[in-house]
């Protein structure tokens, strides 16, 4: 390696190290705060004076006001249900638009595009009152419906993927007498593992990070909160001093699985972003 190359290499690695440190400081901060023994959001010392596991233990034992284990199970339940429903609905819609040709196809696709441009918050009050009218407000079922109700709008990435599966495959199956129903389940889906995984993981993560719709639908029913809304409540003005370190501990527990899933889907993420574009 020449001298020049060595210098460039050292320079680049130093730059990356500095940047990585900047990006990881908040993560590190979260971790040490979750082990901090002193209470409160602000401390005069940057580093904790004493370390403890109490914040974690407290999350699972002290359930009088904030029932973290229950929130965790709520979120898991909602996430699994809405993940299954959303994945199914999204793939069905994507397959229809990608493979089937019928009169209102273009029209439906355009309407979906237009509907997606309305800010989501606009309709949340209407949804709340609708849920209330059918007796579902403050229930987990309502949350599942809200998270999976819009699945028909998020078909773009899956459709882009289906478009790349050769049509010859379908045609060969049709000659063998397979109906479109069989083609969808037996040929398209088994060939689309990446997009199934991607859609499912994204749908699974959504309930873990959303605190807006939960606030609107659950109001003050603490027991039916999900972890995101629950943790968010822990740091509002009334509770922050008492619960800040517990919030950090809970946040760590929620983040670990999400980080793992995220690392798993990163390659699909890149494929998804560029899939629509590279064809143009």
């Amino acid at each position: 390696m020449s001298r020049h190359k060595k210098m460039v290499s050292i320079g680049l690695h130093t730059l990356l190290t500095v940047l990585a440190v900047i990006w990881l400081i908040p993560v590190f901060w979260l971790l040490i705060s979750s082990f901090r023994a002193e209470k409160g959001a602000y401390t005069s010392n940057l580093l904790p004076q004493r370390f403890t596991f109490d914040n974690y233990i407290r999350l699972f034992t002290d359930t009088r006001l904030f029932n973290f284990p229950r929130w965790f199970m709520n979120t898991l339940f909602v996430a699994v249900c809405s993940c299954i429903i959303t994945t199914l609905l999204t793939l069905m819609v994507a397959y229809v638009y990608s493979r089937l040709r019928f009169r209102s196809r273009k029209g439906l696709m355009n309407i979906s595009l237009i509907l997606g441009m309305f800010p989501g918050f606009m309709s949340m009050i209407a949804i709340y009152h609708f849920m209330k009218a059918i007796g579902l407000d403050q229930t987990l079922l309502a949350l599942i419906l809200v998270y999976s109700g819009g699945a028909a709008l998020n078909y773009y990435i899956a459709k882009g993927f289906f478009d790349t599966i050769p049509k010859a495959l379908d045609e060969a199956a049709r000659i063998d007498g397979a109906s479109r129903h069989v083609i969808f389940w037996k040929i398209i889906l088994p060939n689309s593992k990446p997009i199934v995984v991607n859609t499912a993981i994204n749908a699974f993560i959504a309930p873990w990070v959303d605190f807006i719709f939960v606030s609107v639908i659950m109001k003050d029913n603490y027991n039916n909160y999900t972890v995101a809304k629950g943790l968010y409540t822990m740091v509002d003005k009334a509770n922050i001093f008492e619960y800040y370190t517990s919030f950090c501990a809970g946040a760590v527990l929620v983040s670990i699985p999400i980080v793992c899933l995220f690392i798993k889907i990163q390659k699909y993420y890149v494929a998804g972003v560029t899939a629509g574009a590279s064809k143009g």
Partner: protein
Amino acid sequence: MILLNLIYFLAEVVLACFFFGFGFKYLSHFGTLGENTQLKVWNEELQIYERTTGDNSMLILLFSVFTIAALILFIYILILLIKNVRAIIRLRKEGKHIASFRELLLDLLDKKFHITLLAAPMTTLVLFTVLPIVFMILIAFTNFDSDHQPPGELFTWTGLTNVTDVFLGNATKTHTFFGILGWTFVWAILATFTNYILGMLLAIVINHKLVKFKKMWRTLFIISIAIPQFVSLLLIARALEPAGAINVALMKAGIISAPLPFLSNTLLARICVVIINMWIGIPYTMMTFSGVLMNIPAELYESSEIDGAGVLQSFVSITLPYMIFVTAPATITTFVSNINNFNVIYLLTGGGPFALDYYQAGKTDLLVTWLYKLTVDHHDYALASTIGIFIFMIVSTVSLAVYNHTGSVKREDMFQ
């Protein structure tokens, strides 16, 4: 086909029952949204005030929307029914085979498979997206605000008052609206381009051929975006406060003597949200560009090397144009999502510093966070809906302009 007609007929009966048993009493008040205000009446026997049941404008409007949707469905099925009966009569006359119910069902799995697949997604879409949006659009033409809250008070149609209020009528609201609109655009442009350029640079650095452990570097940056935003942004917001970690650290290092007002000074707060947004957004753009960089055909570089191009020249004439071309649609999507970037603003500053000359808003509020505050904190639904419609118009204009300029949508059939 005869059985199918029977099913259609049953559906018609159910819808008709819904209409006369439930929907009609709401729809009949649709014109006024209710006349009888809830009153307090003194009850002599029990010695308490009792509330009479008045009309509830909100429910009248909500159920009217649903009833109208049911009515449209009713007419649609009626047309199907008539068509079917006609088809049967014609087929009978011609002595042709009338499809049995079983054959019709099998058709749903093959020729008409799209109906089967779309039935469930479209139902949820109509119930949880379309009808709520229609409802909220209608709200924009009423005076549903904090002074007109059902069931206590009624609200009613006020025509275009909200729109004229925002644009010319009400000085505070107009000032707020245009102030926030301007900042929303400045923010969206800054947020998009800082992330675009720096994310691209980071991707180039990581993918440089001298850099080792590429995958490890990428993963390090991804960890930060995988942490839920409500966690990371709340932590950073706490750290930026006067007694927060950043001020403490700066004071201990002796750089400043008094805490900096990161979130309470307008200019500082605006700079902060843009910088913090870089922390959030650059890993995303880095990931996108990494994918793009790896996909650039190697032949392009080989041929340019043969032609004697240097590193810089092949970067300017191959890498850069290719990356910009491929990521153009994604960049526009990012721009649009930055216009609606709720999390970064709401969790970091909450829209603050609060502005006295603004109507229920702060200096870093975007249209979408203003909409949220008006809805959730101030129950100013009519104004919020008006702003929602306006956001829709901005977003659709930007998107339409772009979709007309990218081929990938127009020619979506070509590459299949």
